[in-house]
Each structure stands twice: as C-alpha cells, then as structure tokens.
C-alpha cells in the first residue's frame, strides 16, 4: 500500500468514526451511552498523558493529581458556591495548571526514576490531603450530588444525549488541539527531547522550558478530563487522585501504544469497557486488572500500535 492511499484510508476511517460518534445517541441505550461518555473522558485523559510519555519521554506516575485536583475544584465550586460551568470549568483548569507549575518546578529538577518517584509521591500526597481534609472534601466519602453543568442556554444536561454531545464537543476540541500541538514545530522539538536531550541542548533549545511547558499543557488536558468526569459522575472522591488512577491511565497509554495519541485513546476505551465488563461479573476485578498489567508488560510493551507495526513490518519483509 502506498503512502497516499494509506493516509486516505486513515482520513476515511476518521470520518466514519466521527459519523458513528455523532449518531451514537440514536442507537445506544442510555446505559451504554453513559459508558461511551466515560470512554471519551478517559481517552482524553490518556492522550494528555501520552503528550508526556509518548512524545516527550517523561514518564509521570502521578498524572491523576491534575485529573483529581481540577475535579475537586470544579466540584466544590459548583456544589458550595453554585458556580455554573462557564466559571467552574476554567477555575478547575486553573487549579490543575497551578499544581502543574508547582510540581513541574520540583519534578523537572530530576529525570528518569527520580521523576517517576517524585510525580508519584506528589500526587499521592495530594490524595492524602483530599482524604484527610474532611471538612472541605468530605474525606473518604467524597462530595456527592455535584450538579450537571448548566450552560445557561436552556439545554438540559440531565438528558443523557445532550450531555453526551457536550462531552463529545469538548473532547473533539481538545483532541484537535493536541493533534495540532504534536504536529507543530513545538511538538517536533518534544520528540527531539525524547530522543536525545543533550543533542537538543546542543542545538540551542531550552530543553527545560519545553518540558515545563508540555508538563503544564498535559496537566491542563488531564484537568479537563477530570472536570468532565466530575460532571459525569456528579461525584468526586479521593479515588480520583489515587495512584491506582495514575497507574490505570498509564496502562491505557502503554496498551494503546505511546506516542500515537489515537492508540492511547483506543487503549482507554478498551480498558474502560473491560473494567466495566469484569466488575459486573466479579468482585475480584482489581486482581484481574492486575493480570492485565502483567500481560501488557510482558507481551505488548509497545502496545497495540506496536503490534500492528510489527505485523506490517513482517508482511512487508516477507
């Protein structure tokens, strides 16, 4: 298959996918539509982590911090002060952004395994605070009955289809922005940093600034996913920030194939679906998910995208 016809196929598949996403509310039962919303939210979350892991080579084990902090900020403001989505959503993003500035300044002092440990430790400290600060966060019980977003234009978000389109619109805009980011000169500089920091330094790039910028950008997109998730669940609890959540999104990225954006989105949908499926049948779904981690680590360390790449290479050479 030649390059042009290949990209034409991708364009066609993309258009077909978009069409399916648009008509989904007409064909899916409300329960499955809800599941589709959850998949889109986690696809967004996974793509945001891919900006760090796949494109810049920065493996964060604490990405749930930004997902959860924005969710708490938006949830609290909507619940306690009655802020509508036009105020509560930007406020949530600012919360994630500020956390990313602070944590980025600390974590970017290091690299490699220290970076892994520090991102994990920082996010888990945030979990501890969400867990311990009962008077504000409700501690372990979380914050129930967060209202659905109110756009103030007479569209009820209590309606499943309307909320679905709301999430789809935001996820589509965010995806478009992320694709633009990774295909811009900035995005290519990030790939350069992933391949060799010293070479990029020698070329005169301010590597630290690039890493700092993408760290904050990734946190903002993760924060956006967290905000959508709190509107979706109408509930926020320390689980949003827990390291298990960071691990889950890492699994989505690796399973789909880091550095491809579409792969992690697909990985997210797959994991959300699978978790939903097994948790309906067994209480031991945490353990089963644990085995999924082992299987991916041992047999698909480059994810589904990697498997496809290997397959195509094999076919091309035979």
């Amino acid at each position: 298959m030649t390059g042009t016809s290949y990209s034409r196929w991708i364009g066609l598949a993309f258009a077909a996918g978009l069409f399916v996403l648009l008509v989904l509310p007409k064909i899916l039962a409300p329960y499955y539509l809800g599941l589709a919303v959850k998949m889109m939210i986690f696809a967004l979350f996974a793509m945001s982590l891919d900006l760090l892991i796949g494109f810049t080579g920065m493996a964060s084990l604490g990405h749930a911090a930004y997902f959860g902090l924005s969710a708490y900020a938006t949830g609290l403001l909507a619940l306690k002060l009655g802020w509508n989505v036009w105020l509560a959503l930007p406020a949530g993003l600012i919360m994630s952004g500020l956390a990313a500035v602070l944590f980025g300044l600390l974590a970017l002092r290091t690299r490699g395994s220290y970076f892994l440990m520090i991102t994990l430790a920082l996010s888990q400290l945030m979990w501890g605070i969400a867990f311990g600060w009962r008077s504000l966060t409700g501690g372990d019980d979380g914050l129930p009955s967060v209202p659905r977003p109110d756009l103030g234009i007479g569209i009820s978000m209590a309606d499943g289809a309307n909320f679905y389109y709301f999430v789809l619109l935001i996820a589509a805009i965010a995806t478009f922005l992320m694709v633009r980011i990774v295909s811009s000169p900035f995005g290519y500089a990030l790939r350069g940093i992933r391949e060799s920091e010293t070479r990029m330094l020698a070329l005169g790039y301010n590597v630290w600034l690039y890493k700092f910028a993408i760290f904050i950008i990734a946190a903002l997109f993760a924060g956006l996913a967290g905000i959508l998730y709190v509107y979706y669940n109408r509930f926020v609890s320390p689980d949003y920030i827990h390291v298990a959540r960071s691990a889950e999104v890492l699994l989505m990225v690796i399973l789909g194939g880091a550095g491809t954006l579409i792969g992690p989105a697909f990985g997210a949908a797959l994991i959300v679906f699978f978790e939903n499926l097994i948790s309906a049948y067994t209480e031991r779904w945490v353990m089963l998910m644990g085995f999924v981690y082992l299987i991916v680590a041992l047999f698909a360390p480059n994810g589904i995208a990697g498997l496809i790449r290997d397959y195509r290479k094999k076919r091309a050479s035979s």
Partner: protein
Amino acid sequence: MNFWVLQTLNGISFGMLLFLLASGLSLIYGLMKILNLAHGSFYLLGGYAGLVVVQKTGSFLLAVAAATFAIVLIGVLMERFLLRRLHLQEMPQTLLTFGFLFIFSDLAMLIWGSNPETVPKPEMFSQSIEIAGFFYPSYRLFIIGFGLAVALVLWWIQDGTRVGAMIRAGVDNEEIARALGINVSLLFTLVFALGAFLAALGGVMGGPIMGVYPGADFEVLLLGFVVVIIGGLGSLKGALIGGLIVGLLDNFGKVFFPEFALFTIFAPMALILAVRPTGLFGRE
C-alpha cells in the same frame, strides 16, 4: 517534656520501619535499576503472614521467620521468571510491578478482609519500661535497637564482605562486573530477595504498632519513596537518615495537624528537591 521525648521516640521507631522498607527499595534500584512498586505489597503481605503465624503458634520469632521466608520466595519467583525478562525496560517494569501491587492488595483483601488487624507483640516486649521517670513501651525501643542492628549488618555486608564488593561493582558498572566473571544474574536475585526480606521484616515488626490493614501497602510505598527522594536512591545512609527524618515528621505531623499530616512531609521533600534533586546522599 515527657510529651516531646515520647513523640520523638515514636517517630524514631517508625523511622526505623521506614528504613527497613526504603533500604530494600534503594538497594534494588541501585543494582537493578528497578523501581519496585510491589515493595509496599511485600510489607503488607509480610505483616499478614506474620499475623497468621502468631495466631497459630503464638511465637513472634517463628512469625518473623515464616513471613520473611514466604515473601522472599515470592520475590525470588517474581525476579527470576518475570522481572528478569524486562531488564532495563523502565515502562514495562513499572507496569509489571504495578500489576503485582494490585494483585497482592486484592488478594490480601480476599483473604483477610477489610478490617484492620494488629499483630500481637512478642511476650518479651509486651510491657512498658520505666526510663528516667516515665513509662515507654519496650517494644518500640526494641524496634529502634533492631533497626540500628540491621543497618550495621547491611553496612557490613556492603562494605566488608565479598558479596558486598560484588554488588558495589555491579552498581558501578554492570557490564564490566560481568566481564570480570562476577555472576551478576545471581546477584540480582540475591539483592531482590534481600529487599523483599527487609520489606517483609518491616511488615511483621511494624504489625504490633502500625497494624496491618488494606491500603497499608500504598501508604508505606509512598513513605518509602519520600524517604528515598530525601535520602537519595541507592544509598544505605540515605535510607537511614531519610527514614528517621520522615518518621519524625510524619509522627509530629499527625500529632499537631491531623488533617494535614502529609504537608509536613511535603515541605521538606520540596526543599530537598529544590536544593539537592538527587537527595542528600544520592549520586547522579
């Protein structure tokens, strides 16, 4: 006055448990470059295994022996059959040890339920003793002494034995060590086993004072990481000093600001990162 002495001793004894945990994390990383997220599981399962043996036999000593043996066995199997295949592949290693963390935490929930348990203290240290006019649980003093003894033994192994020299060679340059005929592959298993042993030891020894409960695995993993971040990866001295710092901070934090206990850990960690990103005794 008593209050300060008491809380300081509490902090130091907790710090010793953190040292047991963090020294293993640090040793494993130093040689194998593996960040073992299942280290918290070794602590938790060690605690539970110890609990079972104490309940069945009444012997704390036997509990320590059996629990550490069981966890070392798990660790050796993990290393020999799985981790080994992912040598120096950071992401797959991370996923693999995450997987074990979840599997073991759910397994513990399945077997022991969600109620917190406490391992009974050994008979010999069940009383409080009087020092300088006030009473203090002798078991906590025992932990402090025991932790120091373990530190000395680890030092001796590292600096005074042939195996220690081999490990140091492996840490410095794995390939040269292999070329010199050192069986690095065996060292990997040994060090991973030693790390698992130390974590399980922490679990059993900590059982009487910290309890064993679901979530303890994640909790001690976080604290272990903070210890290593403060002390420096791959350094025994760092694990000891870091353990004491975090133990004291955590204890006083819980006493003074129960809702924000973790802030007291966060602040010094941030400070260390700002000044010395590789920790007090770590090397780049």
